[in-house]
């Protein structure tokens, strides 16, 4: 029952099978050359001002436009709906100049007024995408001095402001206001509809949450289609819930691509098939084992150092992940600016771990108490990492208990130090490309209570450095501050930083022209062409 053998003959047998089994008995084949069957997950709903996660980023890049956008690998922030921008010297006033002649899907004009409405809507809903703006931007301080100019006045200087601009979609107030209910900003309506200007248009009749969604091409997109004469005309989102079904569907051609968290063990079988291949991209997504620094023994530095030396980094990366990840000893992706490259991380060394353990015990840390590590049950890699750790810690005489858990549960437990597990495993993806996305929000103590800061690490010197860096605008001024902060954080070893990801996505060989960017993780369809 190998994957490759009989599958390859199926095409030739297709005719026979069709004869035998009535009309339409051919194996499910992906589409004609104009429909891209997308295996990515769908966000919880379609409103980009309510949801902000990796699936939404992927959808947003296709259905909506933003003032600036990240493109390329490594990611560069480039003008999109805006032509250019200026910032005052104190970093408080930002002005964006729009392109002229921009239009929404319904043909109505997209001017600075619609941009102002969009930002005010984000701030009023105050859901996930508003996170970066709520503290620094008041709704009345987003204004439209003229139809092609948008002005922002910030409360305090906040460098990540610009980095987060590509996370705010510009929506069409005319269609939303028509469907508003008791001042809900059209929240219910936009959850199942589209109101954008992007390269593809959401077809609301074909939408069923988390099951399927169809989008059709927007021939009038402002960028035009001159750079892609044979674009995908229809995107059919067909997310699969089971990982096994996902791979099988790719191999029998009923999906054009899987999501980009393909298990490393699937790379060889998929590459051996005639129909599909695996594309690998270095992305900015770090894999971390969190330690709750408020709970003994994790409040003891030597204890934390013991754990940091007891994880088999290279075994995990090379054997379990077949090398599809890069060892990243920093609390941040190693391909981002602000990394102190001279700092050395920790290695797998059980001898050292034992020494640290002895010191910790001498200092009264309860190293022998049963320790719980919570994993995301639906996520194979988090389970495997914990199991590997369990086996190694057992050699030290430390009893690690693997507890299955779910993401919503974990994020809400992380709201308080008491309910936060001893240890837990997660990734930090790129929400915006800035050290703030990682160290800034993970180790500044003002973020305690959010899942990103769930180590409950507190170091006044680090707090000061991170806060100072946040207030400056220029990268060359900020970088040394982050380097200094990271050196201090690494010395305290509050968490176990394991790797920076390589994204693995199974893709049908007929798909050509893919462009990758770590923001959205290569999900932009407008560059694609389908063979045959």
């Amino acid at each position: 029952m190998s994957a490759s053998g009989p599958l390859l003959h199926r095409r030739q047998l297709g005719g026979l099978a069709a004869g035998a089994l009535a009309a339409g008995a051919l194996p499910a084949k992906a589409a004609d050359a104009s429909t891209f069957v997308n295996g990515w997950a769908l966000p919880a709903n379609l409103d980009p001002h309510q949801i902000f996660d990796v699936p939404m980023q992927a959808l947003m890049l296709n259905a909506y436009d933003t003032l600036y956008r990240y493109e390329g690998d490594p990611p560069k922030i480039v003008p999109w709906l805006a032509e250019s921008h200026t910032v005052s010297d104190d970093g408080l006033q930002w002005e964006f100049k729009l392109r002229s002649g921009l239009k929404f899907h319904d043909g109505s004009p997209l001017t600075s007024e619609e941009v102002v409405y969009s930002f005010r809507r984000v701030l009023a809903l105050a859901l996930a995408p508003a996170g970066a703006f709520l503290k620094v931007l008041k709704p009345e301080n987003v204004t439209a001095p003229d139809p092609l100019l948008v002005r922002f006045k910030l409360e305090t200087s906040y460098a990540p402001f610009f980095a987060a601009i590509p996370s705010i979609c510009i929506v069409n107030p005319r269609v939303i206001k028509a469907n508003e209910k008791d001042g809900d900003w059209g929240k219910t309506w936009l959850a199942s509809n589209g109101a954008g200007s992007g390269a593809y248009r959401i077809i609301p009749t074909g939408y069923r949450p988390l099951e399927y969604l169809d989008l059709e091409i927007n021939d009038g997109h402002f960028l035009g289609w001159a750079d892609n004469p044979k674009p995908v005309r229809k995107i059919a989102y067909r997310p699969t819930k089971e990982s096994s079904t996902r791979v099988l569907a790719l191999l029998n051609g009923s999906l054009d691509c899987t999501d980009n968290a393909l298990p490393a063990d699937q790379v060889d079988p998929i590459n051996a098939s005639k129909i599909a291949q695996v594309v690998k991209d270095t992305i900015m997504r770090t894999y971390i084992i969190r330690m709750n620094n408020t709970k003994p023994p994790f409040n003891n530095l030597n204890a934390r150092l013991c754990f940091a030396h007891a994880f088999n980094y290279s075994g995990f990366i090379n054997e379990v992940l077949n090398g599809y990840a890069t060892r990243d000893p920093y609390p941040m992706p190693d391909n981002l600016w602000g990394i102190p490259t001279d700092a050395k991380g920790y290695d797998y060394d059980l001898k050292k771990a034992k020494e640290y353990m002895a010191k910790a015990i001498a200092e009264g840390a309860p190293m022998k108490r049963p320790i719980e590590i919570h994993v995301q049950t639906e996520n194979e890699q988090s389970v495997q990492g914990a199991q590997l750790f369990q086996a190694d810690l057992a050699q030290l005489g430390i009893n690690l208990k693997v507890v299955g858990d779910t993401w919503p549960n974990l994020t809400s437990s992380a709201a308080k130090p008491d309910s936060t597990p001893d240890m837990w495993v997660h990734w930090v993806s790129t929400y915006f490309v800035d050290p703030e996305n990682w160290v800034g929000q993970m180790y500044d103590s003002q973020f305690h209570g959010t899942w990103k800061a769930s180590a409950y690490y507190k170091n006044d010197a680090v707090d000061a450095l991170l806060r100072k860096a946040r207030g400056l605008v220029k990268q060359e001024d900020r970088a040394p501050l982050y380097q200094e902060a990271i050196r201090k954080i690494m010395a305290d070893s509050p968490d176990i930083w394991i790797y920076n990801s390589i994204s693995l996505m199974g893709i049908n060989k007929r798909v050509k022209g893919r462009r990758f960017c770590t923001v959205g993780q290569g999900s932009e369809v407008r560059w694609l062409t389908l063979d045959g």
Partner: protein
Amino acid sequence: MKPILRKLSRDVPAMLGLAIVVFVLLLAIFGPLIAPYPGDAAASHLTRRLKPPSADFLFGTDNLGRDIFSRIILGARGALAIALTVVTVAMAIGVPLGLLAGFRRGWLSETVMRVTDVVLAIPQLVLALALAQLMSPSIETAMLALSLTYWPFFTRIVYAETRRLSSSLFVDALRGVGAGTGRIVFLHILPNAISPVIVRATIGLGFTILVAAVLGFLGMGATPPAPDWGLTIAESRVYLPTAWWYVTFPGLAILLTVMGFNLLGDGLRDLVDPRIRRSR
């Protein structure tokens, strides 16, 4: 008792079931002695991951290089432990309630049977999932959820039998000679009602193993690294279709065990009471 056993021994499927049950019981008791790699319940061997079946590893190895054959043998104990616990707890709740509701008349009996109906209407899997969410997924949560939803079946059976028996002539006769209620219920009604309960319990053992496996599969039952059969299938999904052995053998283990309990239960049912219909 003897003629019943002789009759049972002539029933081929039932004997097959009995053989399977005994075999699984032996595995559960002596598992760690039989398994070629007893340490593989929790160990990991990264260098021999996902090897196909061979002379060394009869059923191949899994994602952490553990011997699947050993893990299936070691899993028998967990599976039986869950099944026995759930069915015992469900009987401990269900049988007394059934006796009470069946022998007493009036509001008490009505209330008990209404509550039973409500609980029967709760989808078992939904309750189990909700409880797992409530108290974090673990084998204990799964057992609790299954026990809480399984007892109404026993209440119904015992209720029906008690009703039938308590209006029968011999109970009237016993009352006539002045026997107390307790004496009538425990010495005369319970022994007569027990045979359908045993049948139900036997089938319930198989059923519970199956539902526990589904919970393991959904990530709401056993937690790693337990060699749970359902959990193993869940873990194997990521490696399909290449590692076919990884999903196949634990599935067969569940199949065989549940089949054993069902065949035995069916045979017993045919013997003791051909009239039971309402049980699943």
